[in-house]
């Protein structure tokens, strides 16, 4: 689904996932779609998942956050707050993962991410907001750098873990009794798109113990079986460091 035109990305690791996703939704040739992304950015991962679900091909434009490429004037013009992801769709530029996802939902309605039912819709937005406003921003680089500088990196890790656990505790309560395949139904919805990158990052980078979050843990296992999610994983991206 993703290609970086400036590097020799081995396609075989993408073909399987892309082909599997194609079986769900036939790929739509949209070479005018460009996604500015960083492999490890959970916000970028959300959009990668959605693009894959909707069968949208895009050009992967890496922005190396560790080399401060987000401060390049060209990128700042695309997103004045200097965060990834940013999406270019022909003449349209959209930044912020939530705004991008809702834009994709309107423009490319195949594989809808929001249900019609108002209560379920609100629940999806609430879950997205918990992740997108109450967990992820507190581990984002302005906060991380501040705590690391004023205290140390151990405090930054503890701080991040605290907020992930706080958010996951609330999410687990909101999703209590969830008996559907995914968070709010048997199809992937917006909540799932926000949940998985946070859970994945929480486990991989911050050692979150998922055994205390049985619903989230079960959902995570289900997401890891879905081709659209697999193809969006950080380590599968063109700018991920080679092992």
């Amino acid at each position, binding site marked *: 689904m993703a290609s970086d035109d400036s590097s020799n990305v081995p396609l075989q690791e993408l073909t399987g996932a892309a082909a599997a996703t194609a079986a769900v939704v036939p790929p739509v040739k949209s070479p005018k779609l460009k996604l500015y992304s960083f492999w490890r950015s959970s916000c970028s991962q959300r959009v990668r998942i959605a693009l894959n679900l909707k069968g949208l091909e895009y050009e992967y434009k890496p922005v190396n956050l560790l080399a401060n490429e987000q401060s390049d004037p060209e990128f700042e013009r695309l997103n004045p707050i200097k965060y990834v992801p940013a999406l270019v769709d022909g003449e349209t530029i959209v930044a912020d993962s939530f705004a991008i996802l809702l834009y994709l939902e309107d423009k490319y309605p195949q594989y809808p991410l929001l249900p019609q039912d*108002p209560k379920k819709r609100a*629940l999806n937005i609430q879950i997205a907001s918990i992740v997108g406003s109450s967990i992820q921003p507190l581990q984002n680089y302005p906060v991380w750098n501040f705590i690391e500088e004023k205290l140390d990196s151990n405090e930054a890790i503890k701080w991040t873990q605290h907020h992930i656990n706080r958010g996951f505790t609330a999410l687990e309560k909101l999703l209590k009794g969830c008996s559907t395949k995914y968070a709010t139904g048997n199809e992937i919805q917006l909540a799932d798109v926000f949940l998985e990158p946070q859970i994945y990052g929480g486990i991989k980078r911050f050692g979150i113990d998922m055994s205390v979050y049985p619903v989230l843990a079960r959902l995570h296992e289900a997401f890891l079986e879905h081709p659209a999610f697999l193809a969006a994983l950080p380590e599968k991206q063109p700018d991920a460091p080679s092992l």
Partner: protein
Amino acid sequence: MAEAEATAGRLSLYSYWRSSCSHRARIALNLKGVDYEYKVVNLLKGEQSDPEFVKLNPMKFVPALVDGDSVIGDSYAIALYLEDKYPEPPLLPHDLQNKALNHQIASIVASGIQPLHNLTVLRFIDQKVGAGEGVLWTQQQIERGFTAIENLIQLKGCAGKYATGDEVQLADVFLAPQIYAAIERTKIDMSNYPTLARLHSEYMAHPAFVAALPGRQPDAPSPS
């Protein structure tokens, strides 16, 4: 449908006078002309941790909206719920670019500014880093976010009377409380943000926004 509406009754909004997230929900309700019951959650007394409230919103944040048997926590979810249920006046334009821009501005506030200076963060900073460091941190986060929004609005050339045109839209619902708090509580120098400063005066002249101001709420302390 009709049966549900008849029994739904009045909406309730769980709110704290000074919470800028609650402030957003109050503006949205006022813009849509929706009458609601104001339910106080005193954050300084820790009422957000009362078991009854945690049942409504496990994140222990205000606002929360109760509409019959629907409970919606989170100001963004509330705003979009109201947008669906009460389509007039619309807070989101039909034009996809302008719609996306409204979400982008709302998200800069809701994810990029406000969560970074809420009570939890400030307590941590004052305790662990040093008393008074929280104020400086808040200023820096607001300035970073306001610079981005000011640049974004100018880049897109989208502002009219309000942030993204001549009608009040979602961006304004999120901007107004953040700008108000920045001026009133953090004493940000708005001369660096001419568009935001002008928007602030527009909001202060709009009845729906004025009625939503912290000082106008039932739980605001009476002026001494």
